């Protein structure tokens, strides 16, 4: 009972109490273990900032041993994986706009003839440079790759071509982002990241707060309908989401000079779906969380894979298949492609569709879960 200035017994009791409370709050305890594990797995296994085996289309207008040799060399290299043999310029444009391929390699007509004459024919590499990190190394690799591949064929009288700057000139077009500026990729991407962050956190808190403070009980004794409560909570945040988007669009235009090739109206329209999807996640969390701290923790658990596996921080195609599968289930992954597609590539609604339906599907699933859980919390 003495009150010494420091009591080990008191300290110990305090420590024990903290541990007991920590164990009682299962979710927090789980997060303490879960988040480091999640980060370890994602950073350790999923992230690769030197992506390889990138999908590539080839457009060859000439059938020749030289052209075949170049393609074969690309196939065997680590960086390129030829997925499509294109037939026309129009097809190439579509493949790049929809993001189906990262590169297009074109071997022009009369390639062999010009090569043999020592005229240094050009091989054109078009890269989808909306994410400069994804294309950098592959672009550097191609020059050496092509010239080395041809070296063996340049025998006999053609040996003379080996000298000088190489027999073939590789021209690189960084499409949509000629200077390879990172902010072209990051700033539009931030739109999705900021929306995910705020929409999920704010809504999960908004409903949990009502329950934690007991105001939900009072609300439910009034004639207000559950749908009215839910919509009434969501609408203000949709507006908040649009204000955030507007801020980022303004910053992109005036601070970062990011091009706006596509339609802003389309961008704001497709964003509604994305905002709704995230709000549904927030509502779902709020029906599970016991208090506001848990709601924030759950939001973080959703936010972490979203930011790491969506292609925002690291190239999506650099990740192993399992990580890409998880990433493809997250709405942010598709939204990033939508925003970059509209702003940088000038995509229209038709090209947006492949990324729109996964978000819509995600939203429907979440809405079903949210409504079901929300009803249970009332009774």
């Amino acid at each position, binding site marked *: 009972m003495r009150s010494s200035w420091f009591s080990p017994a008191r300290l110990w009791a305090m420590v024990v109490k903290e541990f007991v409370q920590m164990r009682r709050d299962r979710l927090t305890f789980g997060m303490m273990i879960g988040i480091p594990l999640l980060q370890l797995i994602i950073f350790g296994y999923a992230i690769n900032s030197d992506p390889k085996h990138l999908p590539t289309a080839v457009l060859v207008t000439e059938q020749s041993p030289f052209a075949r040799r170049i393609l074969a060399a690309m196939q065997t290299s680590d960086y390129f994986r030829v997925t499509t043999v294109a037939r026309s310029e129009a097809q190439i444009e579509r493949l790049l706009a929809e993001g189906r391929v990262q590169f297009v390699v074109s071997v022009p007509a009369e390639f062999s003839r010009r090569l043999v004459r020592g005229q240094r024919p050009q091989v054109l590499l078009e890269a989808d440079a909306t994410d400069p990190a994804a294309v950098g190394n592959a672009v550097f690799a191609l020059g050496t790759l092509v010239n080395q591949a041809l070296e063996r064929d340049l025998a006999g009288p053609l040996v003379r071509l080996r000298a000088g700057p190489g027999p073939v000139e590789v021209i690189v077009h960084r499409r949509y982002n000629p200077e390879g500026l990172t902010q072209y990729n990051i700033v539009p991407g931030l739109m999705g990241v900021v929306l995910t962050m705020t929409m999920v956190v704010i809504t999960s808190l908004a409903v949990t707060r009502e329950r934690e403070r007991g*105001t939900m009980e009072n609300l439910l004794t009034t004639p207000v309908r559950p749908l009215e409560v839910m919509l009434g909570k969501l609408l203000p945040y949709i507006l908040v989401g649009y204000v955030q988007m507007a801020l980022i669009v303004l910053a992109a235009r005036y601070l970062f000079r990011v091009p706006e090739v596509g339609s802003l109206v389309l961008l704001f329209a497709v964003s509604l779906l994305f905002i709704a999807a995230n709000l549904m996640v927030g509502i779902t969390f709020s029906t599970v969380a016991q208090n506001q701290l848990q709601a924030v923790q759950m939001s973080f658990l959703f936010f972490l894979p979203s930011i790491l596996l969506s292609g925002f921080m690291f190239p999506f195609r650099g990740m192993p298949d399992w990580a890409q599968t998880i990433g493809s289930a997250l709405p942010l992954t598709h939204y990033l492609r939508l925003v970059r597609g509209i702003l940088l590539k000038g995509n229209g609604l038709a090209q947006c569709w492949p990324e729109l339906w996964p978000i819509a599907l995600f939203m429907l699933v979440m809405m079903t879960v949210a409504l079901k859980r929300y009803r249970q919390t009332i009774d």
Partner: protein
Amino acid sequence: MNQAAVIIDVQGLVKRFGPHTVVDGVSLTVRQGEVFGFLGPNGAGKTTTIRMLCGLLTPDGGSGTCLGFDVIRGSRQIKPQVGYMAQRFSLYEDLTVEENLNFIAAMYGVPQRRQAVAETAERLELEPYRQHLARNLSGGWKQRLALASCLIHRPKLLLLDEPTAGVDPKARREFWDRVHQLTAEGITALISTHYMDEAERCHRLAYIAAGRLLAEGTVEEVVERQGLTTWAVTGGDLHELTRRLQGLPGVEQVVAFGNSLHVSGRDAAALGRSIEPFRVAPHQWRQVATSLEEVFISLMSGEGGAS
């Protein structure tokens, strides 16, 4: 009073949470204009019963009507005519008094909202606090605001769940005066409480323990049915006396009330015989009327059984 319309009429209400039966066959009849007291220890099922009556919870069993509507299917018709006040302050702490009232009025679709808010604020003397955040109100004023929000849509029935918990005696008295004033105007009130003085201000009472209704009636009826004889003792070493009285035949409870001891039992003769040896100086004994408090202690200790 018995000719008045029946406002709450439920039979055999049951509510289970998982394996626990929280409310087990509770039947209540409350008539218009009554102040009906709902008593019982913590966890007895009072709050759950009230929540079933106002449509927050769906009963798992039982039937009946509230304001003429089915308690199970009619919660949408019942809600607009009920004013419910939860145990805990459940308005928005970060809104002002006026904003809270205005919001609740809108939830109930009150016509001429501005006027209704002004009238209710005036009636409960909340006007000086209209622009204050609810968070900054003291306990008594919070309770007054909560009552105002229950009244703003002119309900026919008030369901008040321990409305005076944590409120000072003066504010409690004013609160009960106001409730009686309202019931005089034809509103019906069902109020749960732990305070005996409040129980005695009710027209009728129900006592519930472990989900079961143990007693119901007017204060006099409840006291009478329990059939307790009570003696008050003063003077001498009352701690020692308590120890010696406990367990004697006929002595069912010995309760300290300040400087006196109340000794009660249902068998008056046996009780009389047991206390006889102790009726010597310095103890002074006198028989007193059994109060509600002794009845409830008796009911709570499980001696009472159903009346």
